């Protein structure tokens, strides 16, 4: 058996394993720890009234994340099969991370709210981004995009590589614009028709979670591009580009994770209301 044949067998086995894992994850019910994390971070009471919305949103996000990783893996395997090689490196990780981030955003932006045929009531309060995410999370995507726009031309001039730098800047700007569009979609997606306070609070919690995910994806992707541009400026002979980019990705993942864990959710101040006695009797779902 040749090395190429062995590589293709390995690719086929990896594809099968990822496919099976994706099916298992997609069909599995929402795990209790995920639900507990959502409740702990948002402070939303999980009740029988809002359970369908919360569980549907958490399950949908997991399905789309999985789909993103599977799609990225498919691109990776297709590339390897076409080129009859087996590539495992920094850019494979970047591809899989991109698939995960794009899948997360698509899953968070979607909504499964359905409307009946009777009269429909809506609040006249405008939903604003600042009601759901803190100032750091609101401004950081724009800061990262601006940083890339400044660094791009410098890198292009210093290293005489305008194409690569322009491509990175274009990707960051497109990610930022897509992030703005997704933010708007999240803010404008319909509210559940039930006037129940717990349903409204859960809807606000899911909206805040979605906006954090969108902003986080833009910051993570944009920061990686910005740090790659910096690495481009600092590097010597270019032989360690992959290592530098990989370290930058890892560093940004850690920083973004830490910063997002600290991000506040100011919407809680707006939606928490006194609980009526009948809702207490209904109680949280065990």
């Amino acid at each position, binding site marked *: 058996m040749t090395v190429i044949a062995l590589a293709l067998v390995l690719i086929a086995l990896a594809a099968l394993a990822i496919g099976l894992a994706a099916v298992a994850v997609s069909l599995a019910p929402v795990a209790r720890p995920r639900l507990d994390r959502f409740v702990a971070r948002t402070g939303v009471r999980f009740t029988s009234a809002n359970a369908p919305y919360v569980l549907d949103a958490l399950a949908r996000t997991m399905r789309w994340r999985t789909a993103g990783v599977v799609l990225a893996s498919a691109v990776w395997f297709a590339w390897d099969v076409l080129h009859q090689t087996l590539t495992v490196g920094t850019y494979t990780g970047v591809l899989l991370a991109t698939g995960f981030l794009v899948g997360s955003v698509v899953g968070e932006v979607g909504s499964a709210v359905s*409307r009946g*045929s*009777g*009269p*429909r*009531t*809506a*609040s*006249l*309060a*405008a*939903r604003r981004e600042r009601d759901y995410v803190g100032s750091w999370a609101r401004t950081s995507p724009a800061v990262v995009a601006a940083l890339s726009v400044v660094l791009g031309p410098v890198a292009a001039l210093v290293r005489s590589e305008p194409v690569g730098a322009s491509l990175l800047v274009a990707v960051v700007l497109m990610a930022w614009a897509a992030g703005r569009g997704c933010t708007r979609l999240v*803010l*404008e*997606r*319909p*509210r559940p028709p039930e006037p129940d306070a717990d349903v409204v609070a859960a809807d606000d919690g899911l909206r805040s979670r979605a906006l954090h995910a969108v902003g986080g994806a833009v910051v993570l992707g944009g920061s990686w591009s910005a740090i790659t541009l910096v690495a481009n400026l600092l590097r010597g002979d270019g032989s360690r580009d992959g290592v530098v980019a990989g370290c930058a990705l890892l560093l940004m993942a850690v920083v973004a994770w830490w910063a997002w864990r600290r991000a506040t959710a100011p919407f809680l101040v707006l939606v928490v209301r006194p609980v009526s006695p009948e809702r207490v009797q209904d109680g949280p779902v065990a």
Partner: protein
Amino acid sequence: MSATITVDPSSGVPPYEQIRGQVEVLVLSGHLRPGTSLPTIRQLAHDLGVAPGTVQRAYRELELAGVVESNRRRGTVVLEPNVERTSRTQREQRLQAAARELVATARGLGVDLDSVESALRGQWAVGD
């Protein structure tokens, strides 16, 4: 608690007129204060389950009547109610629209004209 509006698809009144009439009543009654930003067209359309064009038309008519002002930066903002600025015909039209809405609500609730009149007199007395 923020102001809410309701659209009844089975009502004889067009949805844009239902939205326009309710927003106008909320502004004139002081429930929506001057400077308040109204939801974006898409937000309100999605929440009410109507086409964005329906909300757009309601907002446009409110803007023409001087009830709200559209601003690129702040969106659609409530203006100071100005009864003098409103012509007699416009006032008559608004009154008719509000009356249409009240009649539709009363019929939906199955109450008779006497009950409506009594409710109106009660509200009028509160206003005084």
